[in-house]
């Protein structure tokens, strides 16, 4: 192996801080998903143990902005949650609700302004008869990504009453492909991102070992491990892409298979994909960085045991500290509810 490349820690911190503030006009296509871009930036920063680079005032500004995105629609039987950006005035979105909750935890917020029971009850308005979830009440596709978002929200807010879990599990199983891993929709191709969503969902609802037998878990682990060359790819015969160092390696982490990953090679690939000038990571070496890959690559390094990075809770994709905060809140809520 070549001489190890070092992590350009400070460059990445600065990259994430820049994303938090202003993005150039070439990023206009990200206008509807600013909440999730915010999540990538803050989760990346947190994994680098650098959240304290934000002043308390800046943290509050961000937290206020997030809460300004929370929306309780006037009409009945509508999803209550967080919007992706001020550009979308009418509709909260399931993915940006998940990322909003993650960010609030990362920033140390106590979720006291979150409309908890309204959100969890209204998840039911997004679940379809086949068990899948849409992202909004109108005009949205349904697939396993939003199943994960629903499971994560229900778990984080500690209330599954708005989710028909058995029906959700039926859909998840239908997404299990002949390859032994999960697709985005039934009969589609097995895919790293979909596989993470399915496995994390099952884990979060406590269904993993009930829905998948030993042979299936074994085949799943093998499929995930077979995505590694140095870095990971998302499908057979596709190029390696840094984000799969989270989607695939994260799945393996949930399955308890992390010791079987070739960590040195994975780390080496990730480090090669850094941009040494402006910071951030791209999907492959010598490409341009973007917030998603910068976040996932940083988290991928943390999962691979890179020193000085904050350990990650793979099922929710938040840092250990944020997860501890969540556990504390769940304890408090249960005490209050007399559970």
């Amino acid at each position, binding site marked *: 192996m070549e001489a190890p490349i070092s992590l350009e820690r400070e460059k990445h911190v600065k990259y994430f801080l820049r994303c938090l*503030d202003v*993005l150039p006009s070439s990023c206009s296509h990200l206008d*509807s998903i600013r909440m999730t871009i915010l999540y990538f930036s803050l989760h990346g920063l947190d994994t680098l143990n650098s959240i304290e680079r934000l002043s308390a005032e800046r943290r509050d500004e961000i937290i206020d902005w997030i809460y300004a995105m929370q929306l309780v629609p006037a009409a009945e039987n509508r999803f209550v949650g967080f919007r992706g950006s001020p550009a979308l005035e009418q509709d909260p979105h399931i993915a940006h609700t998940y990322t909003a909750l993650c960010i609030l935890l990362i920033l140390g917020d106590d979720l006291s302004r979150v409309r908890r029971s309204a959100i969890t009850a209204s998840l039911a308005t997004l679940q379809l008869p086949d068990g899948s979830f849409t992202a909004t009440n109108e005009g949205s596709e349904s697939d396993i990504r939003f199943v994960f978002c629903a499971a994560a929200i229900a778990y984080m807010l500690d209330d599954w009453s708005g989710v028909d879990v058995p029906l959700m599990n039926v859909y998840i199983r239908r997404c299990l492909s002949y390859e032994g891993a999960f697709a985005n929709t039934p*009969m589609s*191709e097995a895919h790293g991102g979909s596989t993470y969503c399915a496995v994390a969902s099952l884990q979060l609802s406590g269904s993993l070992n009930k829905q998948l037998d030993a042979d299936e878990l074994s085949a799943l682990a093998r499929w995930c*491990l077979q995505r*590694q*060359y140095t870095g990971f790819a998302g499908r057979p015969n596709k190029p390696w892409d840094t984000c799969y160092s989270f989607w695939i390696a994260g799945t393996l982490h949930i399955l308890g298979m992390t010791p*079987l990953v070739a960590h040195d090679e994975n780390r080496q690939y990730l480090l090669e994909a850094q941009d040494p000038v402006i910071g951030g990571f791209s999907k492959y070496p010598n490409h341009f960085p973007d917030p998603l890959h910068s976040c996932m690559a940083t988290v991928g390094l943390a999962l691979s045991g890179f020193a000085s990075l904050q350990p990650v809770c793979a099922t929710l994709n938040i840092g250990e500290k944020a997860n501890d905060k969540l556990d504390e809140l769940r304890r408090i809520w249960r005490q209050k509810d007399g559970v």
Partner: protein
Amino acid sequence: MSDSESELSPYVSYRERAEWQDIVPLEQEEGLAPVVQIAYSDRFRETFSYFRAVFAKDELSERALDLTREAAMLNPANYSVWVYRRKLLKALDRDLLEEQNFLADIIEMHPKNYQVWQHRKEIVEWSQDPSLELEFTANMFTDDAKNYHCWQHRQWIITRFGLWDGELEFTAKLIEKDRRNNSAWNQRYFVVNHEIEQLEATAAGGAGDADETQKAVILHREIEFSKKQIAKDSHNESPWSYIKGVFRLMKQKLHLSVTMMALCDELMKDKSPHVAAFLIDAKEELLGQQGEGGSEQVNSILEEVVRLCEILADEWDTIRKRYWNYLAELLQVKYQGLPD
């Protein structure tokens, strides 16, 4: 500027357009502090300010429709624009063929955007006319034969409108073009799965025997197909996972397939990890049948499996050496009753 911004006609500010004088643009509510703020171009900012104004009035007009086109071109990921556009198309009773043409252009510019594909799906569902879709998706595959959205759309069209005819041949064509196209192999499984479902549906009526014979014919056909592709390159993962999947679908055992076992023996010289893994799986089936607890037969098969794991770990698939060593140990514990 997004890719499609440059495709729009030269910009004339809405403020300067006579037909828009009556509308007061609604600025976006940003709040006091910038958080992931985007430095929008003037065109982007203004277009969406007018969009917000028109949307707030729920205006259902031609100019609103044109506005949604411009807004969609600037940010195709803004799903509110698409929802509103569909409302407008219905209210104005617009020609859906024209919409399909517009969609063809925008999908080509943004082939991995969820909203444009969803819009196309909704338009087809509304028109009940799938006649363009197979050709459209086939054309998209010439640029990127693995586009996930495109395959999903094609599968939906075929399932929704029963357009199964010729799809098996289509997958063969794509696999012939690129045998490493895992999406094409997945599509082939999609078709074969449907064939089996059809057989089982008719068999339920009492033609049980015919069903099994027909299944055997299909299995044989797929073994021959996969074998041909494997022979060209045994290091290609796709045909291996495909044929294993088909065996499972047919509830057939790998180790009982003379063809496959002979193929594997022949191909060991290629040092392909997939050959070795197939043999491991086949032999594990055997072990599963013999039962646990250390008979001579079991020990002999187990020895072969462990040997294959060692070859993979030490020579043919070293990146996964920890896995193959782990698997060998796991199987030894399971079938030899060795202490954990």
